[in-house]
């Protein structure tokens, strides 16, 4: 009892210096930039190993050498990216402890043991990475190769655990367990109690998936750069293929991401209703219109890349006429998905609408419509993939006709279920409507899984209509990959702002108040400038990392045959 009081007073006596100040840009901007860039690099060094392990596995079990080389090329980039992550992380820690000493003391008082574990795992992870990369050529065959692959898996395990630990700190700031009050002595809080807070697991899952997306997108951007810089057709073909793989992985994981985000949002609402309303309906509501815009860009660009890609596949002409219908669905979906519920209007328009809800279009601004739109967009994107996949083959199994019909019926049923619940959502109470989105999601996922299974079975021994002409891509498709990577990165920054901003003027939600001069949460305009700045810093550094990668070793591309007769005078009719 007396001890506790002494502690409290000690804390009060120490509180004389709660905040430091950083010259020119200010304390908040400094922590914002270092945290965001650190996070982007962290996502890179977590996403790329996942990518590397998956491609290595494809190489081992599928017997395609290209995948193994691709995997190694990326692990090489990891080495540099890894130290960049550590540098930015260290800067962040110094920033926090010098600029927010009171808050940092509070956090360390609770989480100290987990921070030591974090540092320890960081060591282990580094050594695993070195073994993984430098052992690549040593353990190339048979069992050794499997062992090497296991190292890759271990690398991912360490990385994921490290991320989970860091997530626990920031989710604690968002959703400290309810029994913790401003007067709770931080040293009395049980570590696991603080770690296992309401939003920890949803954030973990969301970030793992998002890292895969991010890894794929960065790989795509890298490949597109090498494609544009390529001098020979063979090189172009290799990087065209790599870009396709990166894009494929990014888009596939992207399809899962909204569901993880939905779970997180739900937990936030459950944890604190007013936090949830601040996020979706309060001062942040417009953030979601911007997010909708970015996601529409992702869907449209991703599909665009696939459709252009059909130009290099013999047999794709059959499906050409359908793409414009897919495009129409996507554009309509983007329109619905982006329709704001509360519209920006001047006084005359407000009077005509009778409020800031449009009497007709306002119906498109609610959850039912948006869920329906995004589910249909996901289905459409999946259909694009399917057409792409099937473009240069003709199935020969006797039930091919029936199979295609079943697949078609599945799409129709899934779309029907999505539309049915979307429309029905307008006529039921909210709690039921929230349940509907689960049915919509399940219908879409079930359709994707079943159709894929049928498609794999049907593709057995399929007759080829000619090899894909890798490398025969117009340059604008590669710029599309760049837009994808930039948009993913920016979206990550925006979601980071959303997650951090809903705490508003609290360091730790309703436990520790931010009393610095930066306590007010900035408006979206300022945030967007910060995000753009962070993305720019990150991309510049990544470009540097890529350039270093090219400096250390020639690309993994090996020209087939003995000589590279194309030499420097590559056929340049593609592009520019």
């Amino acid at each position, binding site marked *: 009892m007396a001890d506790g*009081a002494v502690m409290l007073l000690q804390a*009060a006596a120490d509180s004389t210096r709660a905040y430091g100040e950083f010259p020119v840009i200010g304390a908040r901007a400094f922590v914002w930039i270092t945290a965001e860039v650190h996070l982007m690099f962290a996502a890179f060094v977590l996403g790329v190993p996942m990518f590397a392990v998956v491609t290595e596995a494809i190489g081992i079990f599928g017997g395609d050498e290209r995948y193994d080389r691709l995997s190694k090329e990326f692990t090489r980039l990891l080495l540099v990216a890894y130290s960049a992550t550590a540098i930015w992380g260290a800067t962040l820690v110094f920033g926090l402890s010098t600029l927010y000493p009171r808050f940092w003391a509070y956090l360390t008082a609770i989480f100290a043991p987990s921070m030591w574990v974090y540092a320890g795992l960081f060591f282990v992870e580094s050594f695993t990475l070195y073994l993984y990369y430098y052992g690549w050529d040593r353990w190339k065959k048979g069992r050794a190769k499997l062992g090497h692959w296991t190292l890759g898996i271990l690398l991912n395990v360490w990385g994921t655990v490290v991320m989970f630990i860091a997530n626990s700190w920031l989710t604690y700031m968002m959703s400290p367990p309810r029994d913790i009050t401003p007067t709770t002595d931080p040293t009395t809080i049980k570590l696991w109690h603080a770690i296992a807070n309401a939003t920890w697991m949803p954030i973990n899952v969301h970030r793992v998936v998002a890292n895969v997306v991010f890894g794929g997108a960065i790989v795509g951007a890298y490949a597109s750069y090498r494609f*544009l810089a390529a001098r020979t057709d063979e090189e172009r073909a290799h990087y065209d293929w790599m870009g396709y793989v990166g894009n494929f992985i990014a888009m596939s994981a992207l399809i899962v991401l909204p569901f993880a985000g939905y779970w997180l949002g739900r937990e936030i609402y459950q944890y604190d209703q007013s936090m949830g309303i601040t996020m979706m309906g309060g001062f942040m509501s417009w953030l979601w219109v911007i997010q909708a815009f970015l996601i529409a860009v992702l869907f449209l660009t991703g599909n665009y890349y696939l459709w252009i890609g059909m130009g290099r596949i013999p047999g794709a002409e059959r499906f050409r006429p359908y793409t414009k219908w897919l495009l129409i669905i996507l554009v309509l979906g983007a329109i619905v998905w982006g329709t704001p519920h509360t519209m*920006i209007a001047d006084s005359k328009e407000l009077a005509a609408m009778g409020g800031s809800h449009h009497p007709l279009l306002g119906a498109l601004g609610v959850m039912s419509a948006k869920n329906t739109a995004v589910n249909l967009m996901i289905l459409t994107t999946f259909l694009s993939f399917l057409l792409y996949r099937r473009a240069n083959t003709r199935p020969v199994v006797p039930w091919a006709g029936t199979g295609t019909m079943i697949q078609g019926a599945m799409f129709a049923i899934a779309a029907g279920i999505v539309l049915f619940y979307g429309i029905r959502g307008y006529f039921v109470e909210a709690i039921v409507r929230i349940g509907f989105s689960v049915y919509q999601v399940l219908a879409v996922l079930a359709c994707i899984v079943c159709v894929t299974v049928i498609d794999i079975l049907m593709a057995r021994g399929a007759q080829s209509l000619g090899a894909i002409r890798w490398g025969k891509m117009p340059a604008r498709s590669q710029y599309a990959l760049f837009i994808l990577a930039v948009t993913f990165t920016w979206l990550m920054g925006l979601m980071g702002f959303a997650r951090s901003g809903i705490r508003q003027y609290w360091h730790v939600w309703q436990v520790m108040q931010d009393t610095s001069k930066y306590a007010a949460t900035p408006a979206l305009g300022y*945030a*967007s400038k910060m995000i753009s700045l962070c993305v720019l810093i990150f*991309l510049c550094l990544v470009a540097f990392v890529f350039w270093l990668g090219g400096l250390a070793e020639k690309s993994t591309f090996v020209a087939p045959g003995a000589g590279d007769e194309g030499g420097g005078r590559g056929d340049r009719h593609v592009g520019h």
Partner: protein
Amino acid sequence: MWVTNLKIVGVVLGTLALYTLIANEIPQVQSEVPQTLTLGTNVTPEQLVAAGEKVFNGIGGCTTCHGLGTRAPNLLTDETGTGPIGVRCGKREPGKSCKQYLFESLDNPTAYVVPGYQPIMPVMTKQLSPEQVWAVIAFLESQGGTVDVTASDIPSTTSTASSTGGGGGGGGGGLAGGSTDPKAIIQAAGCLACHKLEGQGQVIAPDLTHVGSRRTADSIRKKILDPTSSIAKGYEKLAGIMPKTFGAMMNAAQLEALVQYLAAHK
């Protein structure tokens, strides 16, 4: 090759610029820290003006229209030769003093609209607390006129749920709402968490029941303002535990009341 590089840089910068532009095009809403403006009964005009200026430029959002533009009259600078608002406010409506006129403009903006302007001003008394409203009036009066707003203009408010959180506060408040009752100050400052006084409180720090016999009033005052200045015998290990912030938390009247109260405990 440099053409390609430039193109890539262009695509990247263009995408970033587009997103930034869109986010800046929409109306900007900043989430402010809720602040309760506590102005005591002995608030000075200077304090009111300073608080009002903050509201005017900040949370009140006045400058959106009353800046240098054509949406609303300029308040801080000359308007059609009539001088800034403090000069002209008493002459706008016959029979209304400057104070009455300004309050009406904030409470019922459409009652009198300056010719040539549209009735677009929101009712500010719904957005701001009475303290904030009167602080703004004091600030506007100070622009070329004399400030005659006093604490008696501010209606006493029952605390409502909308005013959450302490968040610093302004003005010369002090502990326990500025009360000079020593018992209330001791209660609010939490002295009894360590000290014992008349049988109440903890025994971590010296018992204050007979502190007046050990220390003079001056010594007590010095000890509160700078706790490390002198340490009672036997308590050397606990030096530095007593917060140094009490001096900043009390106003002079409170400090004096507390010192005299303790000094009387012989």
